[in-house]
């Protein structure tokens, strides 16, 4: 297993450990991650993500970065990087008590 892959596994294991396992899983979820030995942005990335739904929908938004600033500089070289992005939406749980 590569060093980047090992580190990635550690980050995900940490994320899993921090999650409240007693809470039901999200109804919809997009989870993506990438690691790289070296990354050089040619431009500043433009992206967006959001959860859609009514007022009663609960949104979860999680971003993890390693060796990456919040704002990437075009032309800069970043090494041993990792980024994980997860967004999820939860509908309200039905009240089971009468």
């Amino acid at each position, binding site marked *: 297993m*590569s060093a*980047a*892959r090992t580190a*990635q*596994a550690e980050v*995900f*294991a940490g*994320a*899993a*450990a921090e*999650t409240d*396992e007693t*809470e*039901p*899983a*999200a*109804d*919809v*979820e*997009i*989870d*993506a*991650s*990438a*690691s*790289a*030995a*070296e*990354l*050089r*942005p*040619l*431009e500043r*990335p*433009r*992206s*967006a*993500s*959001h*959860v*859609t*739904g*009514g007022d009663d*929908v609960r949104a979860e938004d999680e971003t993890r970065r390693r060796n990456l600033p919040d704002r990437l500089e075009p032309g800069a070289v970043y090494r041993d990087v990792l980024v*994980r*992005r*997860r*967004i*999820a*939406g*939860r*509908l309200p*749980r*039905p*009240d*089971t008590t009468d």
Partner: protein
Amino acid sequence: MATPQRGALKATGRSGGGSRRPQRSNADAPQSEAAAQGTGGEPDVLLDVPKLSVDEIGLEVDNLQARIALQARLADLVQLHVGADVAIERVALEIKGVEAQAQLKARLDNVLAIVQRALETVDQHPELLTELARTAGDAAGQLGESAGQLTEGVGLLGEGAGRLGQGAAEATGSAPGRRRRRSGGDGSGSEPGSADREAGSQSRG
């Protein structure tokens, strides 16, 4: 040199009686396992890119969108919508030693529970159906009323067209020389239909 090893793009799902565990083409994908363990519960719909490895690549992306959403409606009792959207407007990168994973997941258990709960409520309070039927009846009544107004409007339109024809006949009748020439008669204008046709021919000419 870039030697991309593409991960399999896989979509799995289940129906009510099927297996709840989606198949994975790469069981040791760390994110897949961690994500599944961390959030509990297997997804009912899974779009899984379990492993994408590239030695070196120049990447330009324009307008990439990923969206997953759940929508459910039970008459006017329950209306559910939840979705997750990711959009990349523009990304240009050079990357070495890349490993990437992505998953889109949807779980239907909660939707099922909500719908079941609604049905139980209807079962315990059947008068809700009466209320629903009344609401539907009101809506149908409003629709019928609108249709009636539309018909009435068409009637008024026909009446207006009749007046126009009559007006045109009178206008044509007020030009005696021309009327006489056309009709070759007494100019009484006693045949509105022919006057309508005449008015039309005048506008065309």
